[in-house]
């Protein structure tokens, strides 16, 4: 099934997942100009949180009942870790040189990964994840796996709710103000500390949706699944224009589709037979990042820095 529509669909599913994770990078960056490099691990704990809930439920329970509980459990874990990281790791460093929170983020990322590796039962290798109880759907020439069905429904829904929230709610308006000018936002009476917590929490929730999607899509979760996924989602956020939530989703989709295309078709180019296939996919993803940084450093939907001043 190596048709073009199928590859586009594959890219779309993959890209939706990158986009969901990228939201967390971009929201936090937009508000506090911090790259939360532990965000990939927050995505991973979302997957493990969902798995934990599933294992706690009685055997043989219908996935239709288990799924909402898994989402809730995964979200709870990811949001708590994201908010806890903000409160105890990043907030004490606010106002410190930028390198300090960055190094803290990398340390936190290692710590979370090692904690799951060492203390989650049987997490030294990947753990099997439950699947949705229906087979692949065939839409014309395109086959959609059950896990991808969840992704393709959840991603646009989450995105629409977030867009509406940021644009129309009181807290959303306060987030926009804080992102544009944090000091002046305080002069308006906005508690910017609370807004920062909300940004981390939303990022954590989206990461949990992505973590659950990952499990449903690939049939397993692993302690190290956050590394490459996080790096690619970060790429997607930069690609779309970091700080812009629609840019994050767009960047995810562009990255996912580019990866799928490269995986399927690069080897057809004479002289590049060796460079196709899935193992080369990250290479093409990062080549794309470098190209965007060279020719459009503000990202696809990003504003020029001069406009932000």
């Amino acid at each position, binding site marked *: 099934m190596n048709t073009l529509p199928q590859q586009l669909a594959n890219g779309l599913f993959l890209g939706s997942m990158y986009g969901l994770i990228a939201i967390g990078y971009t929201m936090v960056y937009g508000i506090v100009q911090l790259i939360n490099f532990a965000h990939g691990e927050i995505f991973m704990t979302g997957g493990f949180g969902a798995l934990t809930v599933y294992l706690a439920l009685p055997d043989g329970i219908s996935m239709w009942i288990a799924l909402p509980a898994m989402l809730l459990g995964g979200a709870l874990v990811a949001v708590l870790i994201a908010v806890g990281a903000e409160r105890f790791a990043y907030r004490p460093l606010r106002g410190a040189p930028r390198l300090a929170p960055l190094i803290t983020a990398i340390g936190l990322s290692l710590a979370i990964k090692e904690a799951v590796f060492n203390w989650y039962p049987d997490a030294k290798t990947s753990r099997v994840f439950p699947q949705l109880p229906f087979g692949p759907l065939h839409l014309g020439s395109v086959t959609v796996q059950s896990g991808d069905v969840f992704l393709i429904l959840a991603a646009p829904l989450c995105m629409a709710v977030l867009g509406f929230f940021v644009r129309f709610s009181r807290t959303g*308006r306060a987030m926009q103000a804080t992102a544009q000018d944090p*000091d*002046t936002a305080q*002069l308006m009476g906005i508690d910017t500390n609370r807004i920062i917590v909300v940004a981390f929490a939303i990022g954590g929730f989206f990461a949990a949706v992505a973590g659950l999607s990952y499990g449903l899509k690939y049939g397993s979760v692993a302690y190290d699944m956050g590394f490459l996924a996080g790096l690619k989602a970060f790429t997607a956020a930069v690609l779309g224009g970091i700080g812009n939530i629609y840019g994050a989703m767009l960047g995810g989709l562009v990255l996912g589709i580019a990866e799928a295309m490269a995986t399927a078709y690069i080897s057809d180019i004479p002289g590049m037979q060796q460079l196709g296939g899935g193992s080369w996919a990250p290479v093409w993803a990062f080549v794309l990042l470098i190209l965007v940084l060279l020719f459009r450093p503000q990202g696809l939907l990003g504003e020029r820095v001069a406009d932000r001043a």
Partner: protein
Amino acid sequence: MTALLEVEDLRVAYGKIEAVKGISFSVEAGQVVTLIGTNGAGKTTTLRTLSGLLKPSSGKVVFDGRPLGSVPAHKIVSLGLAHSPEGRHIFPRLTITENLQLGAFLRKDKAGIERDIQRAYDLFPILGERRKQAAGTLSGGEQQMLAMGRALMSQPKLLMLDEPSMGLSPIMMQKIMATIVELKAQGTTILLVEQNAQAALSLADRGHVMETGSIVLSGSGRDLLHDESVRKAYLGED
């Protein structure tokens, strides 16, 4: 009667460098008080400390009978102290209406907010004409109007204006100053920081001259305007 704002021996430091070195002044309800002085005299630092963005190293600030010592910045505005910052700092990617609404962020009376937005448009008709435009597209003078309108949206007891005439054309500057006179006539209490000493002193009830972090001279606006040392140092006379 006690003053609306009472500042006593206020000191503010950036690290080891003291920017405000023990100043005292007060603002009575209904007054316009101005702080004048050159760049780096500590005027902006003083305002940023009053609105909680900077923490004083020592001294006392009492506003409306309440000490402000440990009140966080985002709670100050709810006490009735509004600050239109230096450089205007409007939210560039939000519309004019949205900027004004943010000025009323803590208010719950929807009808009152609508009425006050209308009042801002009456005060500055150009803002009303462009209400759906992103604030970043406005000219400097229009942004200044928006910043003042936004500060008024919190229905402040005291309005702090930091360099409202900075970088404006002479015509726009006159407009802004005329607006301040109008606000004064309506009974608004204003603490005005200005480098344009002539304009500020002519409309102020009281003025304080700041130099390198200290108040070196105080008096009524009229007296300072005619003071020889002020004329030499700030009004460009030999």
